Structure formats: C-alpha cells, structure tokens
C-alpha cells in the first residue's frame, strides 16, 4: 500500500515536472490564473459580450504577432510590422476609393504589398546582410514615408459597401477576425511542425552555421520568414481598415513592440530556434486581457503605455533568464 502511494506520488511529480518543463504550458497556467482572478474581481470581464470584444481586439495584433514569431524563430527580428500594417491599411482604401478598383482585387493587392515589404526586408537581411534591427527599422520609416507622401496624412473614409464584412462581419455569432485568427494559427502550426521549410526555420534560428553545413539555403529561408510576416501584417492592415471603416496613416504603427511582447510572452525566444504558435496565441490573449482590464478599471491610456513597456521588459527578461539557464545546463 505504502509503495503504491509512493509510486503515485512520484508519477504525479513527474507529470507536474513534464508540464512545467514546457514554456507554453507554464504561460497557459499563468493565463488561466489571470482570467480566474480578473473574473472574480471584475464581474463585467466575464460577460460573453466583453469576452468577444477582447478576442476581436487582440485577434488582428495576434495575427501580426504570429508573423513576428516566425521571424523570431528563424533568428531574425522585424521592427517594420506596424508600418506594414499602416501601409496596407491605406493601400487597400486608396485602391478602392481613389482608383475605384473592385474590393477583391484591392484586398489581394494590398496583401501582396505586405508580402513585397516582407521580401524587401528579407533581401536586406539575408542577402545584403544588414542587421535585422537596423534594416527593418529603416524600412519601417520608408513604408511610413510612402503612406505620408501619398495620403499627406489624411485618413481615407467612405470605403465601399461590402468591404466592412471582413472586419465587422459575424458568422454563428462570432466575429470573422476570430475565425481568421484561428485559421491562420492552424495553418502556421502545421507549416512549422509538419513541413520541411518550417523545420528549417527553427534550424537556422538555432544555428545558422550548422544549418549551412547541413546544406540548407539559409538566405532563402530567412527571406521566406520575412515574407510570411509581411503577408500577415498586410492581411491585418486590410482587415483593420474594414473594422474601422476608414484607413489611417498611423493605423497599426504602435503594434510593433506588442507583437514582439506577445511572441516572447508565449515562449518564442528572441535568440531564435524556439517557440510555438499556440504560445503566441496565449501571449496575445494575455496582452489583450491586460489591456481590457485597464479599460474596465478606467485607467488612463497614458498608464496603459507605461504598463505595456513594463510587460515587454518583463517578457524579454524572462527570455534572457531562460537562455542563461540553458547555457548553464
């Protein structure tokens, strides 16, 4: 009897250790704890109406975070995602309103503009070998510059009817952006875990030299990661224009660092080679919930910026500690 109790206890310990050894599981537990505490303190939080609002709000930024995660996993960094969102946000509106092009064509072209921005970033980083932080920061300014020069800082309104479905439509009572988030998360999860290119992105992030010696085309893979990120930022820019019913020259620009925070909170390493999409989903959800708590508690938006800065700092510190622990093993 004593032996079986001891065995059960040791099995329980092993099970707990295996759960806690996984970064994504730990972050999921933290998320559940946050939800539990907030639901108890703020009854408004747990209403289905509020929950849908929270999910809809963080869905677009989390889609961009997933793109950022792909770049981070491959050992890169993209500081231009917010600017790409702004560029494609304006581009889709410009094509529909000023050029009179059909909605479907404008949407596809705007997303392709995002892909092109990603390819340009990838070329600078992978082929010309510019430091990713500098290359994407500089290109971010270029993308913003294009928007400002073209629209002269004015918003574009009077978007055509039918376009609003993307960002404001519902299916079975759930906003469409939530479906987009789920579908993109599934596709990226399959891509990263089941395909050769996905595995190679982890490899080049883990060790570029080893990957090169294994015969991998590290430059092309790096370009692939940036183009995926650009495409997702482009898509989010388009849906954001639809949700807002207008396009703004600075829409999405403040998203850049939160996308990094969501990815890192979700277990993606800033040092490359590690991370999972479902972790990014949880990371994005945590940021969304914290934002919502601040709104529900009527805390000023100035404080929200301050708190977001601390969250980012906290996330990268955790990542640095995690890395140091690995080096000590």
């Amino acid at each position, binding site marked *: 009897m004593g032996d079986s109790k001891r065995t059960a206890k040791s099995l329980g310990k092993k099970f707990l250790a295996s759960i806690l050894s996984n970064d994504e599981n730990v972050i999921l537990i933290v998320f559940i704890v946050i939800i539990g505490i907030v639901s108890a303190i703020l009854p408004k939080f747990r209403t289905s109406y509020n929950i849908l609002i929270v999910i809809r709000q963080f869905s677009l930024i989390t889609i961009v975070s997933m793109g950022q995660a792909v770049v981070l996993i491959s050992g890169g960094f993209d500081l231009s995602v917010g600017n790409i969102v702004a560029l494609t946000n304006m581009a889709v509106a410009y094509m529909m309103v000023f050029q009179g092009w059909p909605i479907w064509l404008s949407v596809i072209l705007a997303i392709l503009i995002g892909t092109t921005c990603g390819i340009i970033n990838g070329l600078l980083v992978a082929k010309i070998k510019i430091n990713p932080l500098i290359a994407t920061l500089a290109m971010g300014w270029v993308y913003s510059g294009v928007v400002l020069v073209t629209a002269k800082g004015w918003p574009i309104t009077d978007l055509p009817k039918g376009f609003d479905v993307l960002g404001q439509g519902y299916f079975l009572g759930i906003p469409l952006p939530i479906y987009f988030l789920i579908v993109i998360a599934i596709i990226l999860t399959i891509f990263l875990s089941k395909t*050769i290119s996905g*595995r190679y992105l982890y*490899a080049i992030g883990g*060790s570029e030299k*080893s*990957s*090169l010696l294994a015969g991998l085309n590290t430059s092309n893979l790096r370009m692939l990661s940036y183009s995926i990120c650009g495409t997702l930022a482009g898509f989010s820019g388009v849906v954001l224009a639809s949700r807002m019913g207008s396009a703004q020259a600075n829409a999405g620009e403040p998203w850049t660092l939160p996308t990094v925070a969501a990815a890192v909170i979700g277990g993606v*390493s800033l040092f490359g*080679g590690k991370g999972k999409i479902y972790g990014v989903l949880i990371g994005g959800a945590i940021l969304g919930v914290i934002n919502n708590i601040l709104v529900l508690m009527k805390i000023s938006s100035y404080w929200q910026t301050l708190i977001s800065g601390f969250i980012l700092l906290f996330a990268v510190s955790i990542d640095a500690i995690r890395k140091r622990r*690995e080096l000590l093993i």
Partner: protein
Amino acid sequence: MEEIIRTENLTKKYDTMVALDNVSFVAHKKEIIGLVGDNGAGKSTLINILVGLFPPDEGKIFLDGREVRFTSPGDARKRGIEIVYQFSNLIEGMPIYKNFFMGREIINRGILDNKAMRKESEYALDEIGITKSADQLVEELSGGQRQAVSLGRAFHFGTKVLLLDEPTTGLSLKEVDRTLNRIKLIRDKANMSIIFVTHNLRHIMPIADRIMVLYHGEKVLDKETKHTNIAELTKMITARIKEEEHVDRTKYI
C-alpha cells in the same frame, strides 16, 4: 587500397598571406589520416575547402577519381563529404532525431515523417553503440555524446569522406576514449576515409593509419603512422627541421 579523395596543388591566399601552399594528398577507403599542425598551419583552410565553405585559388580536388568543384557545404555534403566540428555541428534546441535527419528528412505525403525518423535514428545510433532516446534534446547531451550523434549520422548516411575538426578537444578522458573507439569502429565498419584534425598527437597516434603535417600552409610530412613517432612529428609541427632546410616564406609578402 582504393582512393576516395585526392587533392592536387591546393593553394589559398588571404590577401598576401599564403594559408595553403600547393597541398596535394590522397585519402583511401577505410583509412584514418591524422592532420596535424600548429595554429595557422592551414588545417582549417584545407578542411573548409574540402567541405565547400570556400573554393581554392588554385589546385584541384578529385572525388572517386573525378574532378569536383564544391559550390557550397550542401553541395559537398550531397557528394558525400561531411564535417564534424570541435563544438559539434548540431542544433542545440532540437532533439537528436531532427538533427540526425537535418537536410535529409523523411517525407510521407508531403509531411515530415517524425515517427520513421525517430525509429531510424535510434537504430542507427544503436549500431555504433549509442543508446539514447531520439527525443532527447541535443543541449542535454555531453560533448562526447554530441560527437557520437554526429559520427553516427555520418556513418548512417554513407559519408565518403568524414572530416573531424578537433573532435576530442574539451572532452573528459573517458569521453576521449569512447570517441576514439567510435571513430575506429566507423573506420572498420564503413567504407569511408576519415581526416582527423587535431593538436593532440597522443589522441591521433593510436588510431591514425597515416599522419600529415602542415606548417605555414605547406605539407611538410605525410607518413604512415608506424613509420613515425611523436618526437619526429613534434619537430615537424614546430618546423625545426623545415627551418633548417630553409624555406623562403617571405616570397608572397
């Protein structure tokens, strides 16, 4: 013995410095060549050329009797040349089986067949006496175990020329012993030629069939191990003999 790889007059210069000076050698099947020399002797330049990291300025490489030019490490690897570096060329955050099949994945209906790769890598490692779970992360392995995985990988995929760059550096005495035994085992079991780069003559002497010494980019000795000894090799490495023969090393400067 059947020839696998041969070089003719390989030369490499970095600006005015001659890193490799007309180096010719032949490596045969089931042969371990010890490549020794002091820092800056040209060992790394030679193996980096052989593994396709950069081309020689002059000279030729023949693989199985045919002249080859490697455009990249991937190209060299496809033709059967693999390198194992001092600090391992595995990706630390990945499990053994993913590393084992890196660049040679098994695909089933367009999707990675992880199950088959796990099974095959465990079987292949077992063949050279390594019993490890294929799911274990490389970062959890000791230096010797990492070298073992790299050696097992080269063995399993029928590598023709295996380049070992200081594979015993930083290992414990026990691990050095194990690694040397594995290298011998691979030499005996596979039809490959092994070029073992090291500073440590005591590690290479017991297992090498032949020793080659480089000094300032030149090959100054190429002898069967049984016809040389540590004293002679030390002299050649430090170039006491060569200096007496007078080599004008300023000719390229």
